[in-house]
């Protein structure tokens, strides 16, 4: 696990969406001098993706996992933070470098009924990225990609429109489109959640084969932990725009440390009635993503809430001294391996009041 095979490094990525768009609203705001509201969809996420690695992003709806995935392929301009690809910062990349990045970053979407243009044929859909990047051998490449996606004979699909295909076939076309440029990494956003259960296995084994044979790095975004366990080398669990725990998949699933991860894993049904598991059921709702609470974002629902530290100090994602596995956890329950003391900050904070927190989270205009 040396540093040089890191393909993509995400550094404190933030994506905030402005609420109340529209010129009258912003005019009123500028007159009244009020600050616009922001939805903190992704709020400081850092991780790295190594070459040939599969990383799973998990979390409940609205935790920012899809926004993170979309930022990875530059569908969103990050509010703050940066993505480093091949040792180049994307925010500073030239047009040519960005074009190269576009060629190497692809995405597979959740809904195969929506991700294919209904007025284009399968051939045109798969060939489109090649045309954009001016790559030759269009026909041969399209054919190869479709055959790899197990749509054979490929010629038979060339002139078909998406509505003539089944859901599984459509998702295969979407996969072929993502592969046709021969990318370095793919973001797969809930790639099978819209498919029939009977078709999932086929598409999943195709995705598996894709990682194997292309040597691709893949970021899987899903709320389905059993799927991620099957597909991923490493897992990152997100909650309200932040990663709360990340590490090797087996480690996280077998031995979750963060209370939220524990609750999430507990919620996966076990097909054995005799397995007695200690149920951790979460109370309450996900917090307000516009008016972010101070301290730990999970504090209101946390079964192991410890009091003032949790209320006031944001827990950093770091190695913990009392958890010996290779696992990063953002929780005050464990002692930092890097010598960070949240209680120290707690005392400092009570003197400095909450003003510093506001300036820290003030996002750039978007």
């Amino acid at each position, binding site marked *: 696990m040396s540093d040089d095979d890191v393909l993509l490094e995400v550094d404190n990525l933030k994506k905030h969406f402005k609420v109340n768009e529209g010129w009258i609203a912003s005019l009123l705001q500028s007159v009244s001098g009020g600050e616009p509201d922001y939805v903190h969809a992704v709020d400081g996420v850092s991780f790295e993706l190594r070459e040939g690695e599969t990383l799973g992003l998990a979390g409940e709806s609205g935790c920012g996992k899809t926004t993170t995935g979309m930022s990875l392929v530059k569908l969103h301009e990050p509010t703050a933070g940066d993505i480093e690809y091949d040792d180049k910062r994307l925010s500073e990349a030239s047009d040519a470098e960005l074009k190269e990045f576009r060629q190497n970053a692809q*995405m597979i979407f959740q809904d195969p009924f929506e991700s294919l*243009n209904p007025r284009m044929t399968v051939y045109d859909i798969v060939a*489109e990225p090649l045309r954009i990047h001016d790559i030759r*051998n269009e026909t041969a490449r399209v054919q190869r990609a479709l055959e790899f996606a197990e749509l054979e004979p490929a010629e038979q699909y060339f002139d078909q429109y998406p509505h003539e295909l089944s859901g599984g076939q459509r998702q295969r076309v979407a996969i072929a489109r993502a592969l046709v440029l021969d990318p370095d990494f793919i973001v797969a956003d809930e790639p099978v959640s819209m498919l029939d259960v009977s078709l999932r296995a086929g598409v999943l084994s195709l995705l598996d084969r894709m990682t194997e*044979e292309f*040597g691709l790095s893949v970021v899987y975004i899903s709320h389905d932990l059993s799927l991620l366990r099957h597909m991923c080398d490493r897992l990152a669990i997100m909650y309200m725009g932040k990663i709360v725990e990340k590490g090797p998949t087996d480690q996280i699933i077998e031995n979750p440390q963060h209370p939220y991860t524990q609750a999430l894993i507990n919620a996966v049904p076990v097909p054995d009635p005799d397995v007695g598991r200690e149920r951790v059921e979460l109370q309450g709702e996900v917090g307000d993503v516009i008016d972010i609470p101070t301290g730990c974002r999970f504090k209101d629902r946390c079964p192991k809430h410890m009091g003032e530290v949790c209320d006031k100090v944001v827990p950093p994602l770091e190695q913990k001294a009392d958890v010996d596995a290779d696992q990063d956890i953002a929780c005050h329950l464990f002692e930092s391996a890097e010598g960070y003391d949240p209680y120290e900050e707690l005392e400092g904070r009570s003197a400095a009041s909450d003003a510093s927190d506001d300036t820290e989270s003030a996002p750039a205009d978007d």
Partner: protein
Amino acid sequence: MAQEEQTGRSIFTDLDDGTSDEEINKWQRTFRLWRETLRDHWGKLTDELSVKLSLITVAAFVLIGIFAPFIATHEPLTRQYQGEAEILIDKWAEPSILGADSGYILGTTAEGFDIFSQLVYGTRAALMVGLIAAVFTAGIGTLVGLVAGYYGGKVDDALMRLVDFLYGMPLLPTVIVLVAVLGPNLWNIIFALIILQWRSTARVIRSQSLSLRERPFVKAAEVAGAGDWHIISRHLAPNVLPLTFLYGSFGIAWAILAEAGVSFIGLGDPNTVSWGTMLQASRAYSALQFGAWWWFVPPGICIGLLVISGFLIGRGYEEITNPKLQ
């Protein structure tokens, strides 16, 4: 990609040198796909009897318009005189199809114009107004709608406020002002109609492209590196095109009606014959009170036929754009 080739893990590696000869002929393919789509649409359109009849009606009017000089028996704006003495027709000549011995198929107007010839030439004005206004309103509306919907933000705000402004302009007063300033001329009427008509197309196309641009297939194109123009022309436009056609075909009928209305209140082009100006003249000479129904009934029927046909075709097309109606 270079790294992939080194490790030999790409399934495309062997394709990267030289072009293979099995490249598909793109033009042929595009042409074939277009033909298939059009045939499919045509088949669906002519499936219904009312649409078929409407198409026949419109086609008949188009033929009449094209061959007007051969069909019309007289010049539409030349006064007709009676008998050898060439006296100006007293009041009007009754139609010969009703048995009158006048020699004029549908009689003449009080001004001495042959009604049948006017009717035939009026077809030209109606079709010209309808087609030109429809093409321009659909074209401008689609373009503005696509740009506003795709770019959103300030561009959208600016364009939509312009549309709002146009929505605030009432049809007749605006046409009166424009025609008064520019002069009563068929082209100025068409111009005024276009200005007032593209607003609704633009609104509808904008809302459609607003929703289209958030669809995952547009995102997929963005991820692949497609530029703005590529997305607008390849992904948004083909998906709003049926709506454009729909609004175009409704636009034809709407423009013909509006032109007739404008002409009826006396703002028509005095040098062109249109069904609207015929109605206006018949009203001015109180044809209704004198029972000269052959003067105003034929243009009324023609307007009705053409407009209803336009709407029925539009309605038939709507079933293609919105399959749920079927």
